[in-house]
């Protein structure tokens, strides 16, 4: 199982097929490794957790498990929008722990070959941390940003999270 995951590298020298879940955020389309996604759910009632970073939306009850929820728009510094019918929570496995991410919409599972992944252009503007961008996929009709969400929280932030 791991073999399929390892080659996600910016160099894109591999030809294995990689499956990605693509989702929308603002105007852009992003992709994450399908094996990291546990499930995709609609917005349930979120309980706010006080004294956490602003992008922590709160926690939800996922069939008896309490899962923290991160708002991707806030995390990436995008303009906040109202949740609508398309809004989904992607529950991801982050180093063995579940975490949910609010995205505008989840579109599909796509297959790409490793060679299609290009390194992300330097100097990407905006609030997205460089570190969690694993690369970009440039297809004829679309541009997909490949995310590595485990890198989303820089070390400082993890400490902030746990050491507050």
């Amino acid at each position, binding site marked *: 199982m791991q073999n399929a995951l390892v080659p996600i590298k910016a160099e894109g020298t591999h030809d294995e097929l990689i499956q990605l879940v693509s989702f929308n955020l603002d105007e852009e389309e992003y992709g994450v490794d399908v094996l990291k996604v546990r499930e995709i759910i609609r917005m*349930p*009632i979120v*309980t*706010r*957790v*006080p*004294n*956490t970073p602003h992008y*922590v939306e*709160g*926690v*939800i*009850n996922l069939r*008896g*498990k*309490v*899962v*923290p929820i991160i708002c991707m728009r806030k995390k990436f510094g995008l303009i906040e929008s109202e949740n609508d019918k398309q809004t989904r929570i992607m529950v991801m496995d*982050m180093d063995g*722990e*579940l*975490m949910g991410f609010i995205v505008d919409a989840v579109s599909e599972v796509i297959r790409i070959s490793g060679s299609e992944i290009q390194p992300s252009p330097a100097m990407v503007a905006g609030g997205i941390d460089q570190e969690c961008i694993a690369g970009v996929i440039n297809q004829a009709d679309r541009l997909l940003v490949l995310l590595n969400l485990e890198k989303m*929280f820089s070390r400082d932030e*993890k400490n902030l*999270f*746990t*050491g*507050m």
Partner: protein
Amino acid sequence: MPPIDCEDQELLDGFLAETTELLEKLDDDLIALEKSSDDTDLMNRIFRSIHTIKGASSFLGFDLLVKVAHKTEDVLNRLRKGELVVNPDIMDVILEATDLVKLLVSDIKAGEIQERETEGTINKLLPYLLDTAGASQAAAAASTAAPSPVPPSSVATETPASTAAVEATADSVPPPTPPTPAAVPVPAPKTAIDTAPKKAPAPPKPADGKGDDLSDNSTVRVDVKRLDDLMNQVGELVLERNRMIQINQDLQQSDVNRADFNEEFGKLTKRMSFVTSELQMQVLKMRMIPVEKVFKKFPRIVRSMSRDLGKEVELQIVGEETELDRSVVDEIGDPLIHLIRNAMDHGLETPEVRLAAGKTSSGTLILAAVHEGNQIIISIKDDGNGIDTDRVGRKAIEKGLITEEQFTAMSQREVFDLLFLPGFSTKDKATDLSGRGVGMDVVKTNIKKLNGLIEIKSTKGVGSEFILRLPLTLAIIQSLLVEVEGEIYSIPLSSVLETIRVDQRQFHLIGGQEVLKLRDIVLPLIRLQKIFNVQPRGEADDFCYVVVVGAAEKRMGLVVTRLVGQQEVAIKSLGNYLANIPGIAGSTILGDGRVALIIDPVAMSEVCE
């Protein structure tokens, strides 16, 4: 030593599980054997255990283990045949050997076999295997266990020498240079190192540490009957689910009228809730383990301490079958060890003092566990000299913890509370056993962590009793649900002292801190709305509720909008990412599926300081 090369992991796991269990039992049995040395059943059981360990480890090729087990077995065999008589010295050596076996097994468990010094222990066993050992032992026993003046035959010279070594270490005196003719090639320092962890520095520690390493907490043994019960419950649950599917289908095909559906569904709901609460109980019961798991290592600790301290102690254990949640069991081990050490070191007197005070020469230490409602009560009672309140007070004044006037105004209970202050000790000098003033602090912290209470009863000259009151489980707590501007929070009921409805105009301000005059105390107030940054909604009401919580000695009032009610809630962790939010202990899921956060009053008081 080669790394563990065991092809069959399953086999190894089986070996470890079995050996661990045998070793746990072995300790108990050995202590029991010392008391009733003519119990042949017991003797045979011990022999079988060590034999099994030896057999299994030789099969798997753990040579060191085999060597130690083999020699121990040989000595036990002689005891069994009556060629040797059980006495404390032999027991010391055998116990040391079992400790070594434990150490080796835990090495195997950790997956890395280390080079361990086994010669020292084995060499202590060897003398007992010589033909003359029985005779010299008898002689040694006759001359009150002093090195016996056995005629210096070529073989016999070894015996007194090694016996001396054993005794020397037992008394935690640096071992004398071994007599030169020693065929026992144990250089003195080695013996010291070898036995060091077992000796005075911290007697309970090695036994405790090893015990913890060995006892596997990741697997549970469950009574088959309980499993059958659980299966029955699950069977019923499946039936109810089928019933539910049926009702749903009927409803979809709309061949039921509303009244019928309501009735059917109502019944189903009742049965479902019955089955699930039964299931909940069953699973909870499975998490329960007898407190024996902790208690059983104490006879060993008491034995080694009483030998080190030169005190005669009889340990009585009552109610070891009392069951409590494994999470609690895992946490009470350390506090209990400290309390037992305290009782042995401070409480009980030496035989001479006891006789002079008109007591029996042997002190009694009673360790008891009992259920009382929703709590388990563990008490450690000794019939020693009790707590000298004057001495405690003087020490506290000396250390500048309290003033003379404060002390004179103190009740006995308050004086006892001084014992829990970190760094407090009545001992003038820290010894290996006690005196650093850490123990009671550990006890208090651990008990507090478990939401438990500790109470001291003591009469000078008659004895003391330490009573621990602990919740049965940490997974489910009684809580008070409160509303703060629309958000629901849960406060552990164990820390709630009272709730009051007050007019906000009665609040006073002292240095920016809101306080409330409650009868004769001034209660600092914390507005949850403020520290949790809750958006106020609607009109502010003059009246609000104040939940008075007690955390340790401090009291404070939490200001909330509304009280929702009392509920039994299951604690859920917030996960690693949100683990350390100040003032929040965890979360729980309410009846409507929403998550409510559990407030930690202790942390709350720290946040506000």
